């Protein structure tokens, strides 16, 4: 019996050994080093890509300090393109240059000069006429800053001295300028007198112009040496860095010009052709002057330039030449002069019809145009600005209005891993505008490889709008567009280097209906993407 049992155990043991050896054969199945090379795993992924509700502000991307989307009380929108085409401040126009006097005179003191004895020489008056830009006459000027500089030297002088400087017509708080400068022997003495806050009244009588009287009086302090009079003193004086706070006088006829400044109308930047009729476009010219100075300006050569539409350049006519600019009536005031040009007094409506990207203008002008003696004034803050504004009310119609933009684009080499690519474009359009959009994929040689949509596929349908005078949209329109790229098309797209985005826009009923654009209109765009692709492991 025991033998029988042992045999059984031996058989069981043998069976176990067989089992264990079998199991070792299957290690291969768990060996991840034997994982198939270049195997692929497919995944089919769907996700929303873009969800945006775009108003006209978002679509035009046209709002910054120079480009404004402005709405009125009814939410109706105007595009405003603005530019300061000319600007001058008082310093630019009337800056007083540095003046060099360099007075030299001889003085004589009578008597001996023992130590401690002072002898006063007779005063010397120097008259100096300021040179001014455009030979303007200054009646008086209040200085914001400035310096009266000296480099004084008395040749052969063996004593000390004090020079008293007085400008009777330069006062500060009613007190004339009165300064002493000490001199030590024959050494050159440098000194600066701060003129800030001084008001200088110039002598323009008796044939003088901008004349200033300066009185120098020398007091010699005896040092025990001999009196070798007469002595010659070189004052080496000059007026430097004069900046005025306020200036009065006759500024004469200042002429200026500023050619070729332009306003960009970004609405039309990417347009390649088509027509647009805006009902009431306008050009506004705003001229602001805080000079007490009559100015006459000429706005000439106002041209609209369109890169795509003939006649490519169109002059804006109807702008009067010259334009008389009102002067400020009193110091600190400013005067605004406005000129408006629209379809009633110019051809600007026809100009806009060519969808110009730029409006260019030349500005020139002349002050005191009559040439008669004048009494003008200015302050440091005075400025003269010419601002031009192009106002495009979004009210009108457009047809076959094609916008285009080109951008670099590369799908990368992995695009052929995709089995297919599906775009699902949902639009809910609140604008009374239809859009046919197309994307062209181009290779290096600018050959079109493929396009994303069937020809003339309208992916945005215009909303339905009511009649005059408001032309309000009463119902937005939904459109679903599905685009599927199969593998063969995707493989071809590997060579894509550029994408041209072209949109053809038309207002309702193929551009025959006038529309108005309001700020509460929006285009809801939802782009979803589905792709099946293979991942290599």
């Amino acid at each position: 019996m025991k033998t029988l049992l042992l045999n059984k155990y031996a058989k069981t043991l043998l069976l176990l050994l067989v089992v264990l050896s079998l199991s070792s054969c299957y290690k291969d199945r768990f060996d991840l080093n034997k994982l198939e090379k270049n195997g692929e795993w497919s995944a089919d992924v769907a996700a929303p890509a873009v969800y945006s509700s775009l108003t006209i502000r978002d679509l035009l991307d046209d709002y910054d300090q120079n480009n404004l989307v402005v709405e009125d009380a009814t939410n109706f929108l105007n595009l405003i393109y603005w530019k300061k085409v000319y600007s001058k401040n008082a310093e630019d126009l009337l800056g007083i240059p540095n003046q060099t006097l360099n007075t030299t005179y001889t003085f004589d003191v009578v008597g001996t000069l023992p130590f401690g004895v002072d002898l006063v020489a007779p005063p010397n008056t120097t008259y100096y006429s300021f040179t001014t830009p455009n030979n303007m006459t200054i009646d008086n000027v209040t200085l914001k800053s400035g310096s009266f500089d000296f480099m004084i030297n008395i040749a052969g002088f063996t004593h000390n001295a004090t020079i008293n400087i007085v400008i009777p017509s330069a006062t500060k708080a009613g007190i004339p300028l009165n300064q002493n400068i000490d001199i030590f022997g024959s050494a050159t003495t440098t000194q600066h007198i701060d003129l800030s806050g001084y008001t200088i009244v110039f002598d323009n009588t008796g044939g003088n112009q901008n004349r200033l009287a300066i009185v120098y009086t020398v007091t010699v302090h005896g040092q025990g040496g001999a009196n070798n009079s007469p002595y010659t003193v070189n004052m080496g004086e000059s007026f430097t860095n004069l900046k005025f706070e306020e200036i009065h006088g006759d500024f004469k006829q200042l002429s200026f010009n500023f050619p070729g400044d332009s306003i960009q109308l970004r609405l039309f930047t990417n347009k390649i052709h088509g027509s647009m009729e805006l009902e009431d476009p306008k050009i506004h010219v705003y001229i602001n002057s805080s000079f007490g100075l009559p100015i006459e300006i000429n706005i000439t050569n106002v041209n609209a330039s369109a890169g795509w539409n003939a006649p490519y350049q169109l002059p804006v006519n109807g702008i009067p030449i010259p334009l008389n600019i009102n002067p400020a009536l009193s110091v600190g005031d400013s005067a605004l002069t406005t000129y408006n040009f629209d379809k009633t007094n110019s051809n600007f409506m026809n100009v806009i019809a060519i969808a110009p990207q730029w409006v260019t203008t030349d500005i020139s002008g002349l002050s005191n145009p009559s040439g008669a003696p004048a009494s003008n004034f200015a302050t440091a803050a005075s400025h003269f600005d010419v601002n031009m504004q192009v106002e495009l009310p979004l009210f009108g119609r457009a047809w076959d209005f094609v916008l285009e933009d080109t951008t670099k684009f590369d799908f990368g080499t992995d695009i052929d891993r995709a089995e297919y690519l599906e775009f699902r474009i949902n639009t809910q359009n609140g604008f009374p505008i239809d859009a046919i959009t197309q994307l062209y994929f181009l290779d290096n040689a600018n050959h079109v490889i493929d396009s994303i949509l069937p020809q003339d596929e309208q992916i945005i349908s215009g909303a339905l709008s009511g009649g005059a005078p408001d032309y309000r949209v009463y119902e937005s329109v939904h459109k679903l567009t599905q685009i599927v790229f199969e593998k063969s098309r995707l493989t071809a797209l590997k060579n894509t280097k550029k994408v041209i985005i072209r949109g053809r826009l038309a207002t309702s009923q193929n551009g025959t209906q006038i529309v108005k654009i309001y700020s509460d209109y929006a285009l809801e765009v939802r782009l979803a993407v589905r792709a099946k692709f293979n991942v290599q492991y």
Partner: protein
Amino acid sequence: MKKIIILTIPFLLFLMVSDMVKAQNDMTIYNLGSVPQAYYDNPALMPDTKFHIGCMPVLFIPILSSNYTSISNSGFRWDNLMHYDKTVDSIRPDSAKFFKNLSKKNYLAINQQIELFSFGFKIKHKHYINVSLTEKIDFRFCYPRDMLLLANGNSQFIGSEANFDGIGVDMMHYHEIAIGYTTEINKKWTVGGRAKLLFGLSNVWTYRSKASLAVDKDYFDLTPSSNMIVYTSAPETLYGNNGGKFSISDYLLNFGNPGFGIDLGVNYKIDDKWSVAGSVLDFGYIFWNTGTRKYSTADTSFIFRGIDVKGLLNGNTNYTDMFKKITDSLSNIFKIDEKNQKYTSTLNPKIYLSACYKIGKRDRVSVVFRGDIYKSTIHPAFTLAYNCRFGNILDLVVSYSYMNRDFLNFGFGSSVRFGPFQIFITTDNVLAAIIPYHTKNINVHFGCNYVFYYKKSMPLF
């Protein structure tokens, strides 16, 4: 005792990671009446022994009498995941087969039970008392099918949602001190029960797990949603506290998380041939007080409709800022709230129902149903077993089981007695050793005891 526990830990950890780690349902031992540990599946099944002490064969001291280890994966077999191509001697993922075999919820479960000490004895044939000290570790990871299906992309869920309900981890490590009592009421009825005092050591409990990802049918909008609550109890070191110093003795001697459990069983002899039995096990709670945390997210969802390109059009933003904004929004919406909070977790109860037919004095057949109650769901397993005794030393059982949605489970069990010294081993799936790539269940239960019978030989059925 402390030394014994400390010495046990490395052994336990070794079992967790070694190739010896097997088994989950432990169905075969139920039919191996010569092994005292079969009693743990139904405390009404009075062991054949008059007296036993669990012991190790080498040390000859009454420790480590029984080791039970299982790994089961209800979702897929290895050859569902990787196809072996003999012709080129390579393996490759077989996604079709893999996903076809997945259930809505799938579980990777690891279970480890080490009986450190046990003994049991009968009083006047009709009463039986059993005492045991056991170390138990349960780990389950639930992975929903939809989560794995996402590897194929989310397009399959367009117009519906990928449901991740149930995703999460549950883990419990505790000491169990049990005392059992069984009594034969009369010739037909036997009843028994075990009262268990538990001391929790560490726990991860996914209390609530609701998550999904919906894909809109028109716009492909993605809507992730979640509502999660996870409780944990662990040494503070594991949270980065206490200066990162982990003390294994502090861990094992933590009696701050007490609990209790109860097993109940009944056995009814219909006649000399037939008997039926039933038991409920592991009804109980552990009160977690030390190193506890509650991690939760609000019941929330987020609809991703795509990127708003407004900012890009007007140059006010760039892609980096935009994606950061989106991820910041997601982080805020699905923010995980952490707080210290004590909690009470339940054990995972089991139900056994069995019927036994004696063919002769040495052999019998039985059918066993086991229901594992987890997350309010019964996970069933069925076993058909044939048990035969040879001489007075050898007790054999062969079984066939359906478990973890797998029909390919052929089990084997045996106990051999050399004098008073008994060794035993059972497994529910011997095929795991032969074709491991084609199995979902790997388990083994082995141990040794000193056993003593009323008569010299092992009793017959």
